């Protein structure tokens, strides 16, 4: 009995010391939660590619510390996202939890990371709750609040004299935010609106909705269909013959993930279509040039905005780690450094608001062919300068 007890104590002690040495190793641990399975895995892959490129570009080091990256797949499910976040926080004891494509996954996971005192950095999702009442001192975003981009689009529609609009978006957190955004700034009449089924089994056949849009006689159609739904929508828009009849205005729909497939399928209707965004591959700043050319060189394709935000995430963390000289227990120091938003960002100069969402420019962009004949987007004009989201006022911080 005594021997058994000794053995057990020894075992537990060995494990405990082992755990201790791992935790005190000279590295910054970054947990990255994204979607790698299901069709949405293509977005997650783009993000992970960008993160790997960023880590390569900084030589795998932040100050004197090595970067240790742990990627977890949320399977597009809030519950799994939460479990993976728990694992990163409790088992791997990461310093930063980053990633998150989907608003609902982020909402389910935020408590696990924030309650444990970790920094949570959204590389894409920007639900209104986290910008408003649920805002937190350790939450930062390298993307945008959901409403901002469609608000810029509403502005563009006003400028172009569009009087009536038909709206289509998927029925989930971001979709509702997008619709709320465009309705806030668009001054014309909304003639119809369809919120379609979303999730792992999203509706991808929009025949009924497109027929309604056409019958409504609207002067424009506004859509938000991220990921593979975007490509499907554009194809059906063209097949239904709406191109030339109802001009298409989109946000987060025609991106570098959808464009190659649209080009493959000869969907030329998408050329010339316009969208708003905080970032464009041809933005003129050194960091962006380095990022876009590096990404194209390494992966042979244009990066998407998801990739751009993920690339920024690593540089934001690097700035924080370097500001405290690698003393990762100095949370206040790291928070203050991130608040300054003075890291080199692919979007150029921006600042953080009280809710730690970026205050940044929004551009109008257009689908064009580049010099090699590859379809991409280029900047047309700046719609908003230093724009802050409207939920910031609900944030008591």
């Amino acid at each position, binding site marked *: 009995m005594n021997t058994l007890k000794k053995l057990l104590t020894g075992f537990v002690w060995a494990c405990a010391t082992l755990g201790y040495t791992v935790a005190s190793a000279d590295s910054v641990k970054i947990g990255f939660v994204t979607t790698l399975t299901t*069709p949405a895995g293509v977005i997650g892959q783009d993000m992970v590619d960008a993160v790997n490129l960023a880590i390569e570009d900084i030589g795998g080091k932040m100050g004197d510390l090595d970067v240790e990256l742990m990627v977890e797949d949320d399977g597009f499910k809030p519950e799994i996202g939460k479990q993976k976040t728990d694992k990163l926080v409790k088992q791997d004891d990461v310093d930063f939890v980053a990633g998150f494509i989907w608003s609902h996954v982020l909402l389910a996971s935020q408590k696990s990371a924030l309650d444990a005192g970790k920094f949570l950095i959204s590389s894409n999702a920007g639900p209104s709750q986290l910008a408003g009442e649920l805002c937190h001192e350790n939450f930062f975003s390298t993307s945008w609040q959901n409403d901002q981009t469609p608000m810029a689009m509403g502005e563009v529609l006003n400028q172009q004299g569009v009087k009536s609009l038909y709206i289509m978006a998927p*029925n989930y957190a971001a979709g509702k935010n997008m619709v709320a955004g465009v309705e806030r700034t668009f001054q014309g009449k909304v003639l119809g609106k369809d919120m*379609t089924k979303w999730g792992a089994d999203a509706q991808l056949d929009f025949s009924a909705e497109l027929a309604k849009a*056409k019958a409504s006689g609207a002067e424009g159609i506004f859509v938000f269909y991220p990921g593979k739904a975007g490509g*499907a929508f554009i194809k059906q828009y063209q097949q239904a*013959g709406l191109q030339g009849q109802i001009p298409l205005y989109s946000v987060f729909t025609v991106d570098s993930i959808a464009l190659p497939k649209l080009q*493959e399928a000869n969907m030329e209707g998408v050329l010339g279509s316009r969208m708003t965004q905080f970032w464009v591959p041809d933005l003129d700043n050194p960091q962006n040039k380095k990022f876009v050319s590096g990404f194209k060189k390494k992966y042979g394709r244009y990066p998407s905005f998801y990739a751009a935000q993920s690339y920024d995430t690593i540089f934001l963390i690097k700035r924080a780690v370097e500001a405290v000289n690698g003393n990762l227990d100095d949370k206040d120091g790291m928070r203050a450094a991130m608040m300054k938003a003075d890291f080199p960002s692919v979007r150029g100069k921006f600042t953080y608001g009280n809710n730690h969402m970026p205050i940044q420019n929004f551009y109008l962009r257009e689908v064009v062919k580049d010099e090699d004949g590859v379809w991409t987007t280029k900047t047309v004009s700046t719609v908003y300068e230093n724009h802050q989201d409207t939920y910031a006022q609900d944030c008591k911080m």
Partner: protein
Amino acid sequence: MDWNLLLTQFLNGLQLGLLLFLLASGLTLIFGIMDFINLAHGSFYMVGAYFCATLTLLTGSFVLALLMSVAGVFVVGLVIEASIVRRLYQHDHLDQVLVTFGLILCFDTLVHLIWGPEGMAIPLPRLLDGQITVGSLVFPTYRVIIIVSGLLVAIGLYVLVMKTRLGMLIRAGASNRVMVSALGVNINRLFMIVFALGAALAGLSGLLIAPITEASIGMGNEIIILAFVVVIVGGIGSIKGAFFSAVLIGLIDTMGRSYLDDFLKLFMSIQNAETAAPALSAMLIYILMAVILAVRPQGLFPPAGAR
């Protein structure tokens, strides 16, 4: 009332229904004849789409790729039947549900391994990519193609089932399985052919929808539940039942998506109506199935003499 819109939505519903029919016809035969619940039927739908996407890019011809893909999925069906499914005819439904659920996971992951996560587009020939205009009605050409091919397959199946020896065996099998085997028919071969035929029809269904959406992982998993609803509503084992209930469900779904929000706006806020409508129109289908199961469990058109 916008009659043009109504007609367009009717055609959209018909198109969806016929796609469902292609998927459900094989399912109902496999269900009726082998008493086998195949959750993985949707995987053939997906495999068909991926085959067709790859072959269209290789051969440059959509039509050629279509024919080769259907044959390809037929072969995949044969292999799956001979290697796994055959062992399960003697098991209970529970085991069948589990194994075919496992098959779904395997198929989805294999597709991810082979083709990557990003899905594939199928470029259509210019001829099919436009619209057909009749009077003031404008309808996508390709959706007309789907409707026509769905109807052709339905006729083809009708002839096969009603006029051929294989069809006679299928009919006999659907109404009385024991009888057929007692007649000294090579039951193994019959089962194999029926299973592969069903797989090929599912593949055809998947590759027909892919140029509209795209070939993507898990595309069969949601529609398979809808296909089961079609089978149950129509009556297990009945091709005729599958046809009518598929068209009915296609129409309910499309009409629900088109008109339910306007209807709900009459008695709830616009915001709530917009979000409740798609969920309610999806629910309508399950309500239909529950009512039919409760009132007439054998379905609308049960095969003659069954049960």
